C-alpha cells in the first residue's frame, strides 16, 4: 500500500485554485489525461480563504448598513446584532470546486509537491487520514498554479499582527483594529470591521489609499471611509514595531515628522501577496523566479521548456478572473503549443467596500499619459433615479474615452 505508484499523464497541474482547476478542466476538455495536485482543498484562496469568505463578511456588513435604512421605508425592527462566529464559516462550501470535492467528484491527488528535475514528480502526501504514501506522477507538461500567501513585514514583534487568514478565527469583533496596507484587501477588511463596530485605522505607505485606482476613486473612498469613522492615514513611512501592552497592542508607525503610537486590540497586515515558491524546489526543475514569483513569458511558459505557470504565482494580476484566464491559456499552450498570448487586455475589478468601487481599463491619468486626446464624462449617483429611490446617492461613474469615441484610448483609431 505504501509502495510508490507510477502514473503517467499528459499534463500535471499543481495547485487547485481558480488557475489550477481551470487549467485541469481545459486540459481534460482538450482530451488530455490530467492530474491535479492540491495540498489542501480545491478552490484555493478564492473559495476557502480569500474572496468568498471576505464576500460573506462584506454581505454581513451590508445587512448591518441596510438595517439603518429600514425606518426610511416604513419598517421598524430592533437593531441587528452580529455573531462573528456565524458568517464566513463554511459559506463557501456551496461553490463549485468545494462542492465537487465534497461529492468526491473531482479527480486529483492530494499532497504537497516538490518538483524534481527531469519529468518526474514525487509527491509525499496524506490521503484521507490513512498512512502517508508517496505517489510518483510523470508528465510531459506541467502547469504550476500554487498561488500566494499574505506577506509579513520585518519589524519587532511582527508576529503579534494577524493577516487576513487569521480573521476567520476571531470570535468577537475587536474594539479597535489597525490595518496596515490600504490596497484592495486592506480597504475591504477595514470597511467590514468598521461596519461591525470596530474603530478602524487604515495605514498606507502610498500617498493615497487604493493607489492603483483613479485618483478620484481614492479620494471618494477616503471620504466615505472617514464618514464611517475610519481613520485614514496615508503616506506613512512604515511600521516601526508592535508591542504587547497591558490591554491589547501598541503599534508604532513613522510619519514624515516623527513617530506615532496607536493602542489597538488587533493589527492586520495586508501588505502584499508573494508567490508560494518555498515548498517547490523550482531551481531543481529549472524554473526561474523573479521578485517572489515564477517568471513567465507572454505565453505563460517558465524558463523550463515543459513547465508553464498561471495565476497569482506569476505575480501578474492577483484576481480570480485573471487566474482562470491564465489557467486556460497555460493549458492550451502546454498541450497544443498554440503560443497564445496571455496579455490581460480588459480586466474588470473592484472592491466590496462601503462605498463599492470598480474599474476597467485606464485611469484618467493613465489615459491622458497615452498622448491620445481624451474625453471624460462624470455622472454623480445623485443624478440617477435608482440611487435616489434606494437612498444610495453617494458616488459617481467616470467614463474616459479617446476623443474619437473609442472606449479604450490605448487602442483608439488612428494610433
Amino acid at each position, binding site marked *: 500500500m505504501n509502495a510508490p505508484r507510477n502514473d503517467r499523464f499528459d499534463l500535471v497541474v499543481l495547485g487547485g485554485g481558480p488557475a489550477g482547476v481551470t487549467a485541469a478542466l481545459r486540459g481534460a476538455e482538450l482530451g488530455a489525461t490530467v492530474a491535479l495536485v492540491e495540498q489542501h482543498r480545491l478552490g484555493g484562496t478564492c473559495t476557502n480563504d480569500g474572496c468568498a469568505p471576505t464576500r460573506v463578511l462584506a454581505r454581513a456588513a451590508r445587512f448591518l448598513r441596510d438595517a439603518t435604512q429600514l425606518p426610511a421605508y416604513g419598517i421598524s425592527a430592533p437593531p441587528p446584532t452580529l455573531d462573528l462566529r456565524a458568517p464566513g464559516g463554511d459559506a463557501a462550501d456551496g461553490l463549485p470546486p468545494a462542492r465537487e470535492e465534497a461529492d468526491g467528484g473531482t479527480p486529483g491527488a492530494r499532497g504537497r509537491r516538490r518538483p524534481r528535475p527531469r519529468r518526474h514528480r514525487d509527491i509525499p502526501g496524506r490521503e484521507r487520514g490513512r498512512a502517508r504514501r508517496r505517489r510518483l506522477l510523470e508528465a510531459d507538461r506541467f502547469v504550476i498554479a500554487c498561488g500566494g500567501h499574505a506577506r509579513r513585514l520585518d519589524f519587532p514583534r511582527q508576529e503579534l499582527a494577524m493577516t487576513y487568514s487569521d480573521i476567520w478565527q476571531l470570535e468577537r469583533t475587536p474594539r479597535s483594529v489597525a490595518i496596515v496596507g490600504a490596497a484592495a484587501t486592506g480597504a475591504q477588511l477595514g470597511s467590514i470591521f468598521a461596519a461591525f463596530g470596530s474603530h478602524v485605522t487604515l495605514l498606507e505607505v502610498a500617498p493615497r489609499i487604493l493607489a492603483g485606482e483613479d485618483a478620484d476613486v481614492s479620494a*471618494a473612498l477616503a471620504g466615505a471611509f472617514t464618514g464611517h469613522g475610519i481613520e485614514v492615514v496615508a503616506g506613512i513611512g512604515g511600521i516601526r514595531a508592535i508591542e504587547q501592552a497591558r490591554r491589547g497592542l501598541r503599534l508604532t508607525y513613522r510619519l514624515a515628522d516623527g513617530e506615532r503610537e496607536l493602542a489597538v486590540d488587533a493589527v492586520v497586515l495586508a501588505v502584499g501577496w508573494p508567490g508560494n515558491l518555498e515548498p517547490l524546489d523550482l531551481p531543481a526543475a529549472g524554473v526561474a523566479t523573479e521578485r517572489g514569483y515564477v517568471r513567465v513569458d507572454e505565453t505563460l511558459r517558465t524558463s523550463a521548456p515543459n513547465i508553464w505557470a498561471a495565476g497569482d504565482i506569476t505575480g501578474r494580476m492577483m484576481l480570480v478572473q485573471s487566474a482562470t484566464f491564465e489557467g486556460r491559456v497555460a493549458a492550451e499552450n502546454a498541450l497544443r503549443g498554440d503560443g497564445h498570448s496571455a496579455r490581460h487586455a480588459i480586466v474588470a475589478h473592484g472592491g466590496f467596500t462601503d462605498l*463599492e468601487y470598480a*474599474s476597467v481599463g485606464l485611469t484618467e491619468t493613465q489615459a491622458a499619459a497615452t498622448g491620445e486626446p481624451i474625453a471624460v*464624462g462624470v455622472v454623480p*449617483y445623485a443624478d*440617477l433615479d*435608482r440611487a435616489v*429611490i434606494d437612498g444610495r446617492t453617494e458616488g459617481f461613474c467616470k467614463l474616459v*474615452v479617446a476623443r474619437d469615441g473609442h472606449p479604450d484610448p490605448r487602442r483608439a483609431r488612428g494610433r
Partner: protein
Amino acid sequence: MVGEQAVEVIQIAAAAMAGEVPAERLAEVEFAYPTFTAIVGLAARQVVHALRMPLDEARAWGALGRPRVAEWERREA
C-alpha cells in the same frame, strides 16, 4: 467608479470595451429604468456632449464643471 453595486455596473463598461463600442453607440442604448447600470449610459451621453464640443471648449467646460445629463432629458436628434 464608486457607488452602490459598482462592481456589477462596471461589467457593462468592460463589455463595451470588449466590443469596441464607441461612446455614441453606448449613449443610445435604452438601459432598463430605474437601474444602477444605467449610469454608464448617462456617462456615455455626457462624454458625447463633450466630444461634440471643440477640444478647447471641452477643456474649458472641464474647468467649469462638466456638462450635466439627466435621465429625463430629451434625447438629441
